[in-house]
């Protein structure tokens, strides 16, 4: 096999006055294994070239070799800080294809777990954003809050991450007996954690100076790049899958969709912080409405052979719209699974965003996109 030496080629076509700066693949600010090659002129980025694929495991191809229930574990490993949301989108795709109805209790449990997962994911984002901007303390607050949520997830599913708890047609097993009380006890603590991280960071003068008017993108460009989630809403575009195409029981809750104004890093940050409050509101409503009853439909535990056909579902992940395109040929394994990862589209704009930016801002811009390389590379 021939391997071309990438470094030599790049050095050859760099302009004499430009310097070449390599960030990553192992670099704390790249939030995973992501390599960024920057051509810089002084402190200014002339051109940026992202390199992804270091975490490419061929998840979509692997799905074709697993039975329908086994695929759930692969979806856990896509966006590995929002596992429940991933499992959910996949399960919904199969359920839609088979025409399964999920028991009410399972739907509410999914909403509660999914929204808490959103809070956990956003807390991780806020913490690392603080680190990227040079603040150490908020990280500690955020991780404390995230740890509380993960302890709850462990009590529910047995694992802090990679839960493998959702099943096609419901859940693996019923929630723990004291689940409602556990979440109720958790809510004031979580609110406190979110508020603390909000107060210490969002309107901090240094933080504002680092994030405001940095990495701005217009709504038209954002739509063209396929931005979804907080990145798109940061530009003021009102698109949330939970509102636009309500799935599960989302139409029974009242919540707002926070929108930014300028589409810069700070607006994306602000949208995420506000979303945490909204998610906690949804959890509180869901706790009140959650009925007793079964958590799995009768078909859920059998070997599944969905009818021939194809389906596309979308779900609102913490990072944006997760789409699952599932093709079934009538056997016990999917014929093709295509994932539309939100981070993939959000990250594809990095070249555009870094054009003519300062080097010091590159880390902020990358951080504000809140990527997870597990789903970018799949």
């Amino acid at each position: 096999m021939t391997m071309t030496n990438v470094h030599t080629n790049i050095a050859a076509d760099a302009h004499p006055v430009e310097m070449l700066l390599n960030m990553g693949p192992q670099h704390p600010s790249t939030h995973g294994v992501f390599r960024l090659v920057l051509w810089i002129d002084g402190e200014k980025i002339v051109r940026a070239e992202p390199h992804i694929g270091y975490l490419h495991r061929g998840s979509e191809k692997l799905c074709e070799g697993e039975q329908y229930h086994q695929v759930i574990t692969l979806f856990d490993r896509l966006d590995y800080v929002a596992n429940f949301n991933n499992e959910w989108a996949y399960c919904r795709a199969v359920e839609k294809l088979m025409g399964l109805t999920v028991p009410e209790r399972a739907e509410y449990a999914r909403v509660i777990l999914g929204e808490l997962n959103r809070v956990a994911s956003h807390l991780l984002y806020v913490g690392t954003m603080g680190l990227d901007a040079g603040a150490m303390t908020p990280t500690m607050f955020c991780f404390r809050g995230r740890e509380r949520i993960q302890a709850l997830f462990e009590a529910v599913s047995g694992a802090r991450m990679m839960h493998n708890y959702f099943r096609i047609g419901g859940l693996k097993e019923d929630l723990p007996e004291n689940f409602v009380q556990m979440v109720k006890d958790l809510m004031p603590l979580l609110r406190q954690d979110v508020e603390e991280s909000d107060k210490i960071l969002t309107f901090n003068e240094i933080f504002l100076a680092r994030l405001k008017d940095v990495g701005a993108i217009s709504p038209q460009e954002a739509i063209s790049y396929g931005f979804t989630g907080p990145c798109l809403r940061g530009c003021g575009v009102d698109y949330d899958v939970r509102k636009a195409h309500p799935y599960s029981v989302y139409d029974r809750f009242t919540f707002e969709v926070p929108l930014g104004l300028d589409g810069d890093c700070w607006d994306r940050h602000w949208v995420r912080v506000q979303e945490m409050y909204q998610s906690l509101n949804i959890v509180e409503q869901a706790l009140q409405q959650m009925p007793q009853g079964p958590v799995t439909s009768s078909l859920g535990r059998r070997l599944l052979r969905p009818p021939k056909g194809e389906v596309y579902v979308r779900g609102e992940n913490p990072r944006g719209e997760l789409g699952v395109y599932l093709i079934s040929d009538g056997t016990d394994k999917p014929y093709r699974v295509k994932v539309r990862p939100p981070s993939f589209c959000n990250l594809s704009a990095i070249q555009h965003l870094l054009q003519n930016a300062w080097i010091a801002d590159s880390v902020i811009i990358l951080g504000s996109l809140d990527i997870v390389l597990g789903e970018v590379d799949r």
Partner: protein
Amino acid sequence: MADASNSQPAVPSPKPHAAAPGHGPAAEQGTDRLSPAGKDFLAAVQEALKDFHPQPGALFDLPQVHVESKDILEVCRRAKTDAKLQMEMLSCLAAVDYKDHLQVVYFLYALSLGQTLVIKTDLPNEAPRLSTVTSLWAAADWYEREAHDLFGVVFDGHPALTPLLLYEGFEGRPGRKDFPFHDYQEF
């Protein structure tokens, strides 16, 4: 016992693979799952794209049209600019290997209408070529590179069709059905 097992083939002969789904008019899903708004939208799509003779259908509950691969750029441009379609966003681009041919599936989304349009086009297995749509949606850039990596679809006019998910020098098209499942290449 031994006789009985001898009469059976030791390894069950592989059943001929079930006809790939979504291929041919027989497998085409009916439009009965479409919502009334979806049916109206599909009619508007047919009207707007009538120059390209689209075959209407439905991808479960989403309006879908099937077009010739040579028309794809013009169809996409019409879908984006037509006042009744307004497909501002390329949600997803998927390549599917149906063994006897490849299929490229575009999931377009109109934010203002809340409607999704699925555009499908078939390509031959050998030397599949398609016009790029990067001039319409910036999101197509990485999607097309991914489809090129994993399925070998060549997008004519793409600014830089370099490997995205795979490393330089990787041989084979790992997304395709004929790529060995448990095969490793030394990096």
